[in-house]
């Protein structure tokens, strides 16, 4: 393989990895705070992307500068998702706190299905893929076959900055301290005067806003959004979080990049090793490896330290 094609794959893999890692961080935040899986996460991502698209259609005539458009689009998309996340936490997740965990998983799975179907049915022409505006500058540097486009570079950097920012928020800020306290032991945290419900809502808003960001990045990178993009991205994000170790921030990032690496590797290696196997099997390959990892390391690569409570 020539060097420029390798670079192309590397960039693509890194791009996917950042998006997956952001989605996985959301899963990890929820699991850390409440020990629940919010499976509608992927569909919040999709709703965020559609909210951004709608915002763009609404403001395209008002502002001329693409940067200003982008700013408004990001703000609207993130706030819609954050609001949705808070509503879900308040009316679906918190009431089910005492129920068996599988009920929460099912409720959020079904909610994801409902969101997906609602967009398909009620968004104008929602069942077809929609073009996403190309708002970032596209000029770039070419290295032979490989072109490093500035929009990819901006997206990649934004993603990395966001992950670092969330990490700083959780480890350095007061809210982060409260989130970590609730995650550690919610009862003691409550006794110490932390507003449990408020922290839970903030965590869900933060996670959902991150999901919307991942949705926008995905839309800007591929210039297309569709109603079912959330399902696969959600499952991949969940797999990444689980493979890394649920509830572990760094695990989620490792898992995200690992999954992207597996997909890219599958796309490159499968046709090279087995001539009859096309690269379309990359997802099959990646999920197979995930299932195998789950068999070998049942609690993820960086596992949570916990003992069985009897």
């Amino acid at each position: 393989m020539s060097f420029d094609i390798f670079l192309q794959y590397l960039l693509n893999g890194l791009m996917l990895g950042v998006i997956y890692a952001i989605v996985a961080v959301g899963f990890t935040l929820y699991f850390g705070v409440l020990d629940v899986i919010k499976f509608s996460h992927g569909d919040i991502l999709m709703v965020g992307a559609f909210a951004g698209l709608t915002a763009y259609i609404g403001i395209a005539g008002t502002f001329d500068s693409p940067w200003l458009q982008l700013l408004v689009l990001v703000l609207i998309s993130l706030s819609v998702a954050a609001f949705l996340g808070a509503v879900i936490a308040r009316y679906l997740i918190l009431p089910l706190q005492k129920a068996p965990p599988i009920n929460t998983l099912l409720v959020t799975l079904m909610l994801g299905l409902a969101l997906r179907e609602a967009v398909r049915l009620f968004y104008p022409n929602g069942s077809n893929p929609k073009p996403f505006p190309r708002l970032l500058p596209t000029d770039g540097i070419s290295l032979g076959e490989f072109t490093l486009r500035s929009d990819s570079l901006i997206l990649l950097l934004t993603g990395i900055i966001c992950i670092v920012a969330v990490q700083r928020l959780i480890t350095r800020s007061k809210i982060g301290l409260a989130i970590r306290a609730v995650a550690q032991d919610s009862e003691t945290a409550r006794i110490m005067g932390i507003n449990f419900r408020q922290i839970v809502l903030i965590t869900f808003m933060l996670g959902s806003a991150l999901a919307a960001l991942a949705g926008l990045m995905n839309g800007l990178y591929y210039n297309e959004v569709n109603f079912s993009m959330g399902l696969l991205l959600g499952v991949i994000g969940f797999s990444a979080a689980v493979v890394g170790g649920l509830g572990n921030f760094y695990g989620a990032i490792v898992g995200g990049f690992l999954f992207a690496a597996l997909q890219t590797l599958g796309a490159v290696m499968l046709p090279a090793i087995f001539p009859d196997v096309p690269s379309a099997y990359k997802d099959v390959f990646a999920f197979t490896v995930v299932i195998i990892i789950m068999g070998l390391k049942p609690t993820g690569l960086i596992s949570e330290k916990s003992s069985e409570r009897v």
Partner: protein
Amino acid sequence: MKLLITTFVLGLLYSMLLLGSENQAEVGGLVVLGFIVSLVGKKMGLMDRLAAAVRVHPQFPAYASVAGVLITMAVFHNSHFALLMLATVLIYSVVCLGLNIQFGYVGIVNFAGAAFFGIGSYTAAVLATHTEVPHLVILLLAACVSALIGSILIYPVLRTRGHYAALVTIAFGILFRNFLEVNDTLGGPQGMKIPALNLFGWNLSNGIEIAGYEISFYIPYLLIALILLILSFKITRNLERSWIGLSMDMVRTDEIAASTFGVNIANWKIVAFTLGNFIAGMAGALYGMMTAYVAPNNFTFADSLIMVSIVILGGIGNPWGIIPAAAIVVILPEKLQFIQEYRFLLYAIVVILILLFRPDGLLPRRIREYFPGKKAGGEK
């Protein structure tokens, strides 16, 4: 007994009217009527009396259901669509009985129900197209393939718990569909055709005429589906009542306690998972042969969720709840055309509401009675 027979006759009439009516307004009226009757019945304590009557004649519901299917079949002997729906209800009930063993008894939620259903269908398609294996044997072989693939998956499921185990089945369901879409030998996204079921040299799709009556080709499929349903129902029910069921209940409710009492957790999980997938695969093979066509779009993640929602709607762990739940889920959207487009949305909302407000489903599973006749808790 009088009460039971009246209920049976009324229920039969109601379902036949529902199956036979073509008019949207009629169907809507019938659905509303059914809803009101069940509400009023509940208020008047009819349900409790019915439950008491069933306890006196425990065999009645089983015979009544079989008789109901046979009578409905005789009435609609010539209308393909009604029979297809009836058969679909039966087949879906079979699949969900399989899932019920996994979910309701040992507590493994299988989010890849449609995938195992699909494995059955595709195995039947491949075997029927490329080999001369007798078609009834194909049903068994398809079930075995489904159980075999499930038994590979059980390894990571066993090693993991709760959410981690859920991931394994979700990932497998999506993997399966991806695999079908890109695999050209299995027809890719277009899917493949299945030759009609051939019983002892008799091609079932050729329609039948008995004593001057023309009979739909769906009837034989319906009969096979009914036999499958009876068999799998018997298995599930007997499993529940045996000491195996007791062990499985224990695995579900408290793994640690179960293991301290010497219950082999892994063993019962393997048994339940494999048996459930076996049943689902067999149902899938029959369904594929009946519709004569399989495509990846019939086995999506949303379909798996629908199967899980039937189990929840019916009442987790209660095999009796599954059949009415499957009937509601399969027939209503087909009959009410305006629902058809919105059915996934509606199911999703209904399941969310059930989980929030009535987590036990329509017919909740009752607590095991160790001394039949006495109520739990020592009351008389």
